[in-house]
């Protein structure tokens, strides 16, 4: 009976949102245009960066006091950030007309809050990836905890990608590259072959994720470091 229903379901489901003719050429033209635009923006950004002060990398010594046992506190900090972001994405009150035409609009505090949340998130990610690489070197066997933490960070990453924080193309690209690395770590288990770990390390290095994270995070202590 169930099998018969499943067959019927599969047959009927083939018509679900049946795709129309595919506008291949129109989409291709927009893809080419968007990529050229991104390339131009990147060139401009590089030129501007060459003329501005470079934010110094945070000292690696900052992580010396971190111990594997501190990972649990790290997970809690990540969870707290995720919950905070979830609250930010829910409007406190429904949008309405101002009471008076001369009423002064409040300052855009939400965007500042997203920027702060992004910086905090990138700082946590940097700390996590540093610990992760250190545990790989020591063969610490923390795959389960690493996967669980990566999943939490991944959830926050996706919230940020959906938020105004991703309006900045550079931040967006970093979040996307980070998403890829975290997704790989999230799939780790104690049975994972060492090749998987090598691939993650390679991926981190090739996309210069750590360097970009450190550049994006201003130097100075973060709340995560305190937690850890």
């Amino acid at each position, binding site marked *: *009976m*169930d099998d018969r*229903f*499943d067959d019927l*379901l*599969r047959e*009927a*489901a*083939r*018509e*679900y*949102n049946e*795709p*129309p003719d*595919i*506008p*291949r050429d*129109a*989409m*291709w033209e*927009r*893809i080419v245009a*968007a*990529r050229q635009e*991104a390339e131009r923006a990147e060139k401009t950004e590089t030129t501007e960066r060459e003329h501005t002060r470079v934010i110094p990398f945070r000292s690696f010594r900052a992580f010396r006091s971190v111990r594997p046992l501190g990972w649990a506190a790290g997970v809690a900090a990540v969870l707290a950030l995720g919950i905070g972001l979830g609250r930010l*994405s829910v*409007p406190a009150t*429904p*949008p309405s007309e101002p009471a008076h035409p001369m009423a002064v609009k409040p300052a855009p505090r939400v965007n500042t809050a997203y920027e702060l949340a992004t910086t905090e998130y990138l700082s946590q990610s940097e700390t996590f990836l540093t610990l992760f690489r250190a545990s790989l070197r020591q063969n610490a066997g923390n795959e389960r905890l690493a996967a669980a933490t990566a999943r939490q960070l991944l959830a926050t990453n*996706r919230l940020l*990608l*959906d938020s105004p924080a991703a309006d900045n193309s550079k931040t967006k*690209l970093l979040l*996307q*590259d980070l*998403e*890829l690395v975290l*997704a790989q770590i*999230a*799939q780790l288990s104690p049975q994972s072959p060492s090749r998987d770990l090598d*691939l993650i390390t390679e*991926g981190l290095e*090739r*996309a210069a994720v750590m360097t970009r994270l450190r550049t994006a995070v201003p130097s100075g202590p973060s709340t995560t470091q305190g937690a850890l």
Partner: protein
Amino acid sequence: MEERELIGRVLAGDPSAERALYDAHVDRVFRLAYRMAGDIDRAQDYTQETFIRAFSRLGDFRGEAALSTWLGSIAISVTLNGLRKVRRQNEREISLDDAAPAVRGAREAEPDLKERLNQAIDNLPAGYRAVFVMHDVEGYTHEEIASSLGVHPGTSKAQLFRARARLRAALADFVRD
């Protein structure tokens, strides 16, 4: 042309290879995006974003899985993120007064199986719907789905089982008939 050779040419900056790679995979990506979005504009947006991201990250593609699976994982991630954004936007915009006619059960005539099924699929949680559409509608294997969604194949199978159970419950009267 071999896939590996094609990727090499794209990475070397050959525009004709980029177009060839796009032509080889665009149908599959678009079909998935459209099945999930049910809207031509959004499906185009998600397809375009998938390829833009894919071209910018092609250097990271290691070739452990097929290129189509790798593209599928980007496509489903882009689509689910996009749909979440749309859902949140809609939730903010729909006032109580506007919401009333949108209630599914308020239709005058009893819809037929196809329409009821479409509604039931639309109402599945995003994760179940993604697995159901990928497996039962678009014919992806559980391994491909697992790789695309970053889960184990067993999770994909369990999600499909639960999705079908929900659909079965939603269409219970048809099942009895």
